[in-house]
Structure formats: structure tokens, C-alpha cells
């Protein structure tokens, strides 16, 4: 019976979908699309959402719905308008994704410089509305084009993770630029710009009160522009040569290049378009809800935009807009209905997961053909066999090990004993970085919420230690187990869906942790009480980590002792990960990343392999979080903001996301550099480790810091080989490649083309 229903339903869908086929006349197709959209919207909004939030008594889940608080229609409407702007961010993300196959973290920031400048001129310098429009469009586009030519083009051959991180740096630089541009325009009135009312001709043109809210011409104009842009872009991609070229180069950049498509120019056009979209988005947002004082977008709006784009399969413009509207409606409905804005994140997480699972059959069909190229950097190759046993190489290796060992042991004294705490934090962040290497570097699953899993570990271990006085190792084990379990739950959708889709769910999870799970009003039973501290333990009743220990002439402070404990756990995490990588399980993970179909052909259970990666990664991350709880003694939601997850992602990629050494290097660089005594007092040293510095580093070392290490080591080995008169093919090949990068490019392109032919 059920299969019969399914068959009939399938037939109906099939018949309906024929309307969309190219052979049908376009008015019929457009009408069908409109009708479908309308029906879907009405069903979703009026029946499902209204039902969930207002009309149906869901007493079993009292946090979600209530009969006493039906959601008025205007909340839906307002949510749809505000959400359409999320959809616009999603559109920009889709554009860049299709050109470069990356998440553009700078998407909303691309146009913010021009658009916010235009808004300031409009409001504080009384410029005419029509006079600022060209500034929005041309200025926004110019920023996008410049960014592409200066930064993106330089990284066009870099691993995608690197380019993704480059966009974070670009976003930070643009944010600073936006701030100073605004300040330059408004001068001393900057404080007033916080609450500025941005009036447009449309604000005065029409105004209508609907229920509790008042709508103006700005709402209508916004909706019209956003829908117009979606239609226009869809037409652009379908009917124009340039649009088709963009699609072609997004399908296969190398093949497109061989077919004569100027892929670089196409990329510039795409970034320019994306920036114009961004500028329009900020400009439209001003009169509706205002613009933040410093910068336009952070992880919240990124999540909303990314969710819209992903639900649209990084492809369909209309769907992205509709998904953005849906997210806006959910957000407004939750804030309106429940006196708990913290519920937005968990509800959104559920919506995203359901939306992804509902279309997993589409998403699973190799939507991301270049999934394997998420690999961030070459893994550390062993020293060539020919040189490995040379005394000079052996001595150098031993010397390096001694130096590294000494640095690790003496770190609390190098940074100053009073800063040993930060050294511990570096070790903890490195542990979480190791978990990210396993998940992202080796398995190819992008996680933007790894710090969220660490937060769970911190909450569990902190609560057990502070409230129940549990044994330290037991709390660590329970935290790790919880982390593994939750990581598997988050990863379930990723069994069929690759790449970016996990990034969205993990980012939503990170928000859920900060806004919901780490809040005492919801989880007081889990978290330490206000006055309770997760005190550092007295290990086995012998090694008290809260008291200093004199060791001969040296006094080992309590902080230094805890640092050694963290280093011990980091060592264990590295050992575990290294063992994993060396044996069959590790090779399976790499296989899952690089060629899952081939792996399936060998009878490997992909689902189990991926889940194992999630579990191991979650286990390690949660242990890092548990140590963090002991390190600081308290659980503060602000310590686990989603920005931190993105920052850890950035650190790991800077170091080299597929290298364990890289994970540690990234953490040491970002957190450790400002601690060094010689650099501590240098003004603006943080710039080196934030946006601008990241850009500089990646421009010099596109493979991350680990690449710098490779170069140093291989250069030295080459000299050793020359001196000893040993011919080492791999080292020589490298140098040849470095000497003739054009030829290497041709060889690489040919390789890719051959792969495509096969």
C-alpha cells in the first residue's frame, strides 16, 4: 500500500516536473514555477510553521510551541523580508562557490564598504538617494574585482581550504576599511550612527500597519529587488555567454580553460557580481533594520546565508531566496513566540538538518566533484630513503628533537611563568586542532563548529568536577564519550552529504552550544553552579596541580604543572592520530576524502568509516574542552563563541590542515607569537596573527606554515645530497618543478583532463 502511494506520488511529481523541462514553452514553465513556489510557501509558512509555533499544542516540546501565543501574520511577513536579505547573502555565497568552490567568509563584507559609505552620505551628509546608488553599485563592484585580482587570483591554484581562510583575512581587512571610511564621513557623529534612521524615498512612498508591525515602501522595494536579482541572475546564468562561461568554469575549471574560456576573467566577473550583491544587501538592510556599527557580517549572518545557500544546493537562486526567507521567518517566530532568543539556534539547527536530509538524494550525487581538493597541504613526506640513514641527517633529526623537546619543556619559562596559562591554552587549542585535522584534513568534512564540541566537553567535565566532585580522569573520559556521541549525531547527515553541508550544521551546532546549552537558564543541571569552580585536580592524591613544586633550584609553578598535563594530553592526541593515520583506518579516511566511490568498490563501508572519523574527532575535541574547563575553572558561554570555532579552523589551516604538526604550528603561531618576550611589547603585533597577517603568510606560503617547514627541510636535504654526491630523484624533481612552474601547471592540467576523460 505504502509503495503504491509512493509510486503514485512519484508519478504526480514527475508529471508536474515536466512543466519545467526545457521543451515546455517558457510562459508555462514560469507559471508552473510561480505556482509551485506559491503553494510551497503557503504550505510551509501558513500550515507547517503556523502549526508548529502557534496553533498546535506541542506540550511534549513546550520550548517550541504554545496555543496561547499564535504568531501573527506580520511576523511571517517581516521574517520573509528580513530573510530575503539572508537569501541575498546566500546568492553571493553561491556565486563564489560556483566560481572557486569555496565558502566566501568575506561575502557580506565585500560590498559593505561602499554601501555603508553610501548610507552615511545619505543620512549624515544629505546626499540625494539617486546620487549614492552609483556608489553602491560601482564601488561595491570595484572592491569585489580588486579583491579577486589582488588576492583570489594569487591563490587560484592553492588548496581550497587555504583560499577559504584567505577570505576570512579579506573580510577582516574590509571590516577595518569600512569602519574608517564611515568614521571619515561622519566624523564626531559616529556614536549617533549606531541608531541612525536611514530614510529613503520608498520610506515615505507607502506605509501600512499590518497587525502589530508597520510596513513601508522599503519592505516592498527590498522584496522586489531581491526577487528581481534572483530572476536576473538565473537568466544571466542560463541565457548569456558569460553566465554559461561561469557555469562551465565552475563545473570544471581546467576543462573550461582548455575549451578557451578565460577562467581568470570569469572569476573576476563573478567576484564583482558577488560584491555588487553584497553592497545591495547592505544598502537595503539599512532602512529596514539598520547596520551594525562595526562591520556588517559575523558568524550569525554567515550561518543564515550559508544555510540558505546550502539548502539551495549551492545552485538554485530562487531556492536560496526562499530558504533565506524561511530562516528569517523561523528567527522572527521564535523570538516572538518564546521569551528566549537563545532558542533560535537549536531550532535553526533542526531546520537545517531536516532540510538537508530531505534532499540528500540530490546532494549525494556528486554535487561537489572536487571534494578531494579540500586537502589543505601536502602531508609531511618522510626524509628520502637515500638520505635517511646519513649520519648528518640522523644527527640533525636528533638535534631537532632535542630542541623541540626543550622548547616544550621550557615553554613556561620562555613565555614567562606568569604566562604559563596561555601556554596551556595553546596546548588545548592544538588538541582541538588535531581533531580538526582528522575530520577536515584527512576525511574532507569541513567542520566550523569544532570548538562547540569542545564546549560540550567543558560543560560535562566542568559540571561533574564542580558539582559532583568526580575523579579527573573519569570526567575526561565521560566528556570524551559525550563529544564522540554528539559528533556522530551531527555527522549523520554528512553520511550522504559532503563538504560544505557539514560546515553549515557544525556552525549551527556551535551557535546552539553558546546560545542554548551553555546557559544556566536551560541547563543548570549540567553546568557548574555560579560559585563552584572546576578546580584543578590532585592527581592520584599525590600531584597537586594547584600548588607549586620546588625541583631543586627550580620552582615549578602550579600553572606550569597544568601546562605539562595539557602537553601530555596533546602528546596522547598526536599519538592516537598518528597511529590512526599510519594504519588501515587512516588510509580509509584519506580514501573517503579523495575517492569515496573507489573505496566503496573495494567493499569499504563509507558510513562506518565517516562515523568513526566523527567519533574520534569529537572524542579528542571534547577532551580538549574538558581540559579547558579545568584550566579556567568556570564555564563562560563567551569563551565558546562560534567565532572561536572559526578562529580554530583558521589556525589549523594556517598551520596546514592535513598535517598534525601543522595543527600545532597554527595554534603556536596565532596564540604564541604575541607572548614571546621579544615581541610582547611590539605595538600591533596582533595584526600579524589576525586578518592582515594571515593574508601575508598565505601569500608567502600558500600551503600554510607547514609548507615553510618543508621548504626549509628539503632545501637543507638538497644541499646535503649535493655535498654527499647522492642523487635523490624526489628532491631534484621538486626543484625542477619549482624552477619551472608553468610546465608543472601544464602537466597538472593534463593530469586533471585525463582524469576527467577517464
Amino acid at each position, binding site marked *: 500500500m505504502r509503495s503504491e502511494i509512493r509510486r503514485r506520488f512519484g508519478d504526480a511529481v514527475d508529471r508536474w516536473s515536466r512543466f519545467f523541462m526545457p521543451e515546455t514553452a517558457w510562459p508555462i514553465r514560469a507559471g508552473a514555477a510561480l505556482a509551485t513556489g506559491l503553494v510551497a510557501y503557503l504550505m510551509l509558512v501558513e500550515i507547517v510553521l503556523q502549526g508548529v509555533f502557534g496553533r498546535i499544542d506541542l506540550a511534549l516540546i513546550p520550548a517550541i510551541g504554545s496555543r496561547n501565543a499564535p504568531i*501573527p501574520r506580520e511576523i511571517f511577513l517581516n521574517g520573509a523580508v528580513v530573510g530575503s536579505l539572508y537569501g541575498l547573502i546566500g546568492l553571493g555565497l553561491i556565486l563564489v562557490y560556483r566560481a572557486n568552490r569555496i565558502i566566501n567568509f568575506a561575502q557580506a563584507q565585500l560590498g559593505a564598504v561602499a554601501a555603508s559609505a553610501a548610507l552615511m552620505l545619505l543620512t549624515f551628509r544629505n546626499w540625494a538617494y539617486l546620487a549614492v546608488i552609483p556608489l553602491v553599485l560601482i564601488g561595491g563592484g570595484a572592491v569585489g574585482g580588486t579583491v579577486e585580482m589582488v588576492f583570489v587570483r594569487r591563490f587560484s591554484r592553492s588548496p581550497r581550504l587555504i583560499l577559504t581562510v584567505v577570505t576570512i583575512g579579506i573580510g577582516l581587512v574590509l571590516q577595518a576599511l569600512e569602519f574608517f571610511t564611515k568614521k571619515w564621513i561622519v566624523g564626531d557623529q559616529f556614536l549617533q550612527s549606531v541608531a541612525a534612521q536611514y530614510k529613503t524615498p520608498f520610506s515615505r512612498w507607502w506605509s501600512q*500597519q499590518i497587525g502589530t508591525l508597520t510596513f513601508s515602501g522599503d519592505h516592498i522595494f527590498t522584496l522586489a529587488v531581491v526577487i528581481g536579482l534572483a530572476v536576473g541572475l538565473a537568466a544571466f546564468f542560463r541565457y548569456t555567454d558569460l553566465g554559461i562561461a561561469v557555469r562551465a568554469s565552475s563545473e570544471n575549471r581546467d576543462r573550461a580553460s582548455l575549451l578557451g574560456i578565460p577562467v581568470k576573467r570569469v572569476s573576476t566577473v563573478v567576484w564583482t557580481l558577488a560584491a555588487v550583491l553584497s553592497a545591495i544587501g547592505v544598502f537595503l538592510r539599512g532602512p529596514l533594520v539598520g547596520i551594525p*556599527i562595526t562591520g556588517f557580517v559575523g558568524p*550569525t549572518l554567515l550561518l543564515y546565508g550559508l544555510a540558505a545557500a546550502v539548502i539551495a544546493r549551492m545552485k538554485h537562486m530562487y531556492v536560496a531566496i526562499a530558504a533565506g526567507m524561511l530562516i528569517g521567518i523561523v528567527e522572527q517566530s521564535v523570538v516572538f513566540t518564546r521569551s528566549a532568543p537563545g532558542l533560535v539556534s537549536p531550532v535553526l539547527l533542526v531546520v537545517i538538518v531536516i532540510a538537508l536530509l530531505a534532499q540528500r538524494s540530490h546532494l549525494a550525487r556528486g554535487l561537489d566533484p572536487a571534494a578531494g581538493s579540500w586537502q589543505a597541504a601536502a602531508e609531511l613526506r618522510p626524509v628520502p630513503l637515500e638520505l635517511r640513514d646519513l649520519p648528518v641527517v640522523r644527527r640533525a633529526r636528533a638535534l631537532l628533537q632535542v630542541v623541540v623537546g626543550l622548547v616544550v619543556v621550557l615553554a613556561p619559562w620562555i613565555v614567562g611563568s606568569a604566562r604559563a596559562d596561555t601556554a596551556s591554552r595553546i596546548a588545548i587549542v592544538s588538541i582541538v586542532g588535531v581533531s580538526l585535522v582528522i575530520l577536515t584534513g584527512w576525511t574532507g568534512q569541513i567542520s566550523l563548529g569544532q570548538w562547540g564540541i569542545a564546549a560540550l566537553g567543558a560543560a560535562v567535565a566542568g559540571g561533574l568536577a*564542580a558539582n559532583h566532585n568526580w575523579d*579527573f580522569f573519569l570526567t575526561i573520559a565521560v566528556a570524551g564519550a559525550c563529544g564522540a556521541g554528539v559528533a556522530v549525531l551531527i555527522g549523520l547527515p554528512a553520511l550522504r552529504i559532503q563538504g560544505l553541508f557539514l560546515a553549515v550544521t557544525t556552525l549551527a551546532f556551535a551557535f546552539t552550544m553558546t546560545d542554548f546549552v551553555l546557559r544556566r537558564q536551560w541547563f543548570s543541571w549540567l553546568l557548574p553552579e*555560579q560559585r563552584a569552580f572546576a578546580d*584543578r585536580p590532585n592527581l592520584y592524591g599525590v600531584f597537586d596541580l594547584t600548588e607549586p613544586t620546588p625541583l631543586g633550584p627550580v620552582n615549578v609553578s602550579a600553572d606550569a604543572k597544568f601546562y605539562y598535563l595539557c602537553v601530555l594530553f596533546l602528546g596522547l592526541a598526536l599519538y592516537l592520530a598518528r597511529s590512526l593515520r599510519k594504519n588501515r583506518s587512516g588510509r580509509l579516511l584519506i580514501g573517503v576524502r579523495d575517492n569515496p566511490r573507489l573505496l566503496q568498490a573495494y567493499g569499504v563501508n563509507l558510513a562506518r568509516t565517516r562515523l568513526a572519523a566523527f567519533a574520534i574527532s569529537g572524542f579528542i575535541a571534547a577532551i580538549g574542552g574538558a581540559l579547558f574547563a579545568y*584550566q*579556567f575553572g568556570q564555564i563562560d558561554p563567551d569563551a565558546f563563541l562560534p567565532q572561536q570555532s572559526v578562529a580554530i579552523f583558521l589556525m589549523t589551516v594556517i598551520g596546514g590542515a592535513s598535517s598534525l604538526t601543522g595543527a600545532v604550528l597554527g595554534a603556536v603561531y596565532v596564540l604564541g607569537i604575541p607572548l614571546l618576550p621579544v615581541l610582547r611589547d611590539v605595538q600591533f603585533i596582533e595584526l600579524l596573527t589576525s586578518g592582515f597577517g594571515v593574508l601575508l603568510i598565505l601569500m608567502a606560503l600558500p600551503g600554510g606554515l607547514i609548507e615553510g617547514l618543508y621548504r626549509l627541510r628539503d632545501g637543507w636535504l638538497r644541499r646535503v645530497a649535493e655535498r654527499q654526491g647522492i642523487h635523490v630523484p624526489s628532491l631534484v624533481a621538486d626543484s625542477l618543478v619549482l624552477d619551472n612552474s608553468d610546465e608543472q601547471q601544464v602537466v597538472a592540467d593534463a593530469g586533471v583532463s585525463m582524469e576527467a576523460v577517464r
Partner: protein
Amino acid sequence: MRMLSPDVTGVTTPVALAYNRRRTMGSSKLKLYRPFLAVLLAQALFIAVAPSLPSNDKLSAQAPLASGLVPSDVEGVFVDPETGQLVTAEGIPVDASGQPTGTAARTGQPGGTAARTGGPSSATGASADMSHCKGDRQFDILHANPPCVPKWPGGDNGGATYQGVTKDEIKIVFFGSTPNPAVDAILAPQGLARTEDDERALFAAAQDFVNKNYELYGRKIKIVERDDNPCPQTPPDPPACIEAARQVVAEEKPFMVLWDSGLYPTVFNEFARLGVVTFGGWHFSAEYFTDFRPFRYDVFMDGTKSVRMLAEYWCKNLAGKNATHTGVRIHNSIGARGTVRRRLGISVPDVDANLRTARLLADLVEKCDPGAKPPFIRPYQSNIETASQQADATAAAYIDAGVTTIACLCDPIAPAFGTRSYTKNDYYPEHLVAGIGLLDFDKLGRLYEPSQWTHAFGISHLQVQPRHEDSDASRMWRATGRSGTPCQSCNLPWGYVALAASFIQSAGPDLNPLNVERGALSGPGVGGWKQSGGNPHVPRISFGPGDYTGIDDLKEVYWNESTASSIDGAPPSYVNLNGGRRYEEGELPGGFEQRVPVKPQ
């Protein structure tokens, strides 16, 4: 068993194969994980035999007693904070060694160990030198001067009585977070930001002033400015700030830390855990300060008392009446001004501690206004990215609930988004100024949508600002022989230094947190409307059992577009009612309608 193995017996039936496969896999896996299992077993054994338990929380030794008594240095002996007397847990008077005695066993009797138990009274006997006193005050330079204590005759002050204290010096750290260049760029034109040079000059003067005018029992204070911390003002980074706190304590070993901040409760907790007396944490709840006694104090009124006084204002002035100070129409779906009975809406950050404070306010309001609809609490997330969107939904919720009067127990930026949204949606309620979060500061009030804030009235903790040249900071500045005035925003840090100095003075020669607490809680306090003869520049600052925060009184205000501010001489600003008269709890008057005008729009 071995016989079943196919390679031995040649048996290849499916069952045998399956059995063999399971057996070989099982044994090899067991072999593979044997070391791991051994470690696990050993660890389990250790957990059972020698568990690694958390070390004792040092704060638990200072746990508050139900009786309100303060533990002294001697086990089983406590200080009655109201009388300063040493008592047992049962309230029996004892001497410093714990032996029962008569009333003579008061702390601070001259000589011996008792003299160092605490209190400024090492010379309270007949020979006490009070010649320097100006009336009952230590000096008469400031608007609010500390109580006079006898001059220290010299001798043994106990030396290093606590961390950061020697026989000659008391170290105080002024902790500062790293300024955000963007935020400073915004605040500087408003005169709200301080430079490092400003602070350095202020603290040099403050140090001179305190060492010269306060009784420090043979010691001098040394103020160390530590604003080189990697602790950002914004965005929040608690781990970095906790590390900075630990670093400051490890490097400076201060007795006290002053931090004029309303953020980072976990960092203040950490200072308390490290046994450092701290001042700061605006409007945290009374419960919070009591939880972390005897280490936590602040100048500003705690959140609990603030909402009690706000509830008192509501109950005496607004409860049970129609909303008369709204816009002409509150909202089309609610009704016109004066026709709708008041309903309170409370905007509050979505943080547990703040929510509890909001619920307390709601409970108190509900009790005094039983017939009305209960107050409507709307939490919001302090997320600048989504603030506007939240404001729209919140406005809709308020309108839907028929809220006529909104109290924002929030940060000073939140109302900027809220009021903009209310105006956009033609919603003009009354705005009840709660006096917290500096919303009652003229320059911040100007951030809010004028058509909304014109309907703002309520209570303000801030005292009427004198001219800058006449402020306490400027008076202190000139008293040290310096010319001109300190920076515009230097009054706040000076307030903290002055309070710290008063505490040290009242603690006596045996300087430690318990004696600081005893001295603070049993002291008479300073300032106040009545005590100062009706001086609006002088708030009442006192402490007592369960009250670890300073300011006790407040004034009535309303917002007016045409009134010039005393801060910068420009309109608009708050109008102080009754000449800035200050009221303590229970003293607030009713009948606000006669004092606060109804605005035409």
C-alpha cells in the same frame, strides 16, 4: 578448539569458517588492544584506590554564614559586622583567642594581637589623637569625605599581613582591559574615553592624595596601572582575561584590584578565587557579591537592590493607573494615551543572572499591582548582528501583549535598536528609566530615538554632576598641588580609588580581606542627602551585612529635549527632579504625575 580451524582440519563448512573468522579476528583485536586495555584497567584501579579529585575550593573556607557573621582569623571566632564584636557562631562574645569575655573583647583594643584583629581603633582609648579630624570626617576636601579615625601612633602594624601588604606598602592594581581602537574612536569625541597618559597622571595624583590624607597605619599605597593586558574590552574573551588576571596576580601580588567594568563576572570570580579583594562589576546581583565575600565589592548599587527600588517607584507611582506619559496613541491596537491600564514590559539580556533579576522585578510589581496583567519579560541576545531583527520581533511581542511601559535592564546600546524599531512600528510606550547600565547618562540617552525617549522617566543612580572643576576628582587633583583638572572621564576611576582607600582605613593595621569586610560592613558610610545637608552631588555610600555595593540612593529624572546637560552644556538631557534630591530605599515619593510633564506628541 583448534581442531575446528579450517586450515588445520580442512573443514570449510560455512559455520566453521564463520567461527574461525570470529575467533581469529577476536583474538587479534584483543592482542592489538591489549596494552590499551591494560592502561584502562590500571586507570580504573587508580580511580578506585587513589582518585584524582579536584583540589579544595579556597573560597569554600569563606562560605557565608546564615547568621551573617564574618569569620575571623581565629577558628570558631567570628566578627559581628554590625557591632564589630568578636563572637562565637552562637553569638557569645569572646576575645581574640576565642575565650568568652565581656564587652571589652571588642576588636581593636590597644596592644597585643587583639589590636591587629582589625578595626581602625588601635588608638580608640582615651589617648586617641583625633586632632586632625574635620568634624567627624577625616578631611573636608571632597564632596564626600570618609569618617575620621584616630591617628596611628606608630609601632608594629603587623608587617606583611596579607598578599600585597608589607609594613610600608599596600599594593593596589588598577586593572584595565585593552581598549578597542574602534570603540575608542567612537567614544573619544564624546569625552568618554581615557588615554593611558590621563590614567597615569590621575593615579599619580590619587596616590599622593591618599597617602597624605587617609590613615594607612604606617603604610603607603602604591597604585600599579595594568592596562597592558591581553584582555580585550570587546569582543569578549574571558579566557584571555582570566589569564591576564592570573598574570597580574602572579606578577604584582596585589592586595586589591580595581576594575571599573560591568563585564566579565568570571574574571572577578577568578580574582576572588586567588584571594584578591576586588572592586567592580556594575549591578551584579546581591547574591553574587555575597557568594564571593569577603573579596567582592563595587561602588554602584547591586542589581537586586536596583530592581527593588525600581519596583518601589512603580508601586508608588505607576501601579494600578492608566498609562499617561506615552505618545498620543500608544499603538493603534493598544489604544490612546491615558485610556489603557499600565502593563510593564521588561527588556533584559538573555543571561541567567539578568533573567533572575528581571523575574524579581516582575514578582515585586505583580505583588503591588495584583489586578493588572503580569509584567511581560522579553530577553534579548547581546548580538550586534541580529539586534535589529530581534528588536522588530520584540516590538511586535510588546504590542501584541499590550505593554504600555517598558523598562530596559540592559546595556546602553540595546535601547538604540529597540527605540528605533518602536518608532518604525508606530509604537510609543512610556520608557521607565531603571538607572542601570548607564542609560541614565545624558550622552548615552542621546543615542536613543528622540520620539521615543521623550517619554522616558524614572530613576537614576548617578548623582547630579557638578562642573568638572568642582568634581571630587578635580578637588583631589588640586589638593595635591597640581594645576588644572584631570581628564573628563577620570571621576569614575577616582571613585574606585577613594572607596579602596576608605576600606583600607577602616580595616585597621591588620590588613586582610576579613578585616576589610568587617571594617566596611560596620562602618557608618559616607555622603547621602540628609547627611550632606541636601547636597545633590553626594550619593549615599554604605555597606552592611548582605550589602557589598556602595551607592544606596538615587534620584528621579525625566528626559527633556530642551534642557541643557550639566556635562557639556548641550541639550537634550535628563532633568533632575526636586533639585536632584536623592532617596534611599523606602523613601521614594508617589505622585510623579505632578512632577513629570506629559509630552505633546
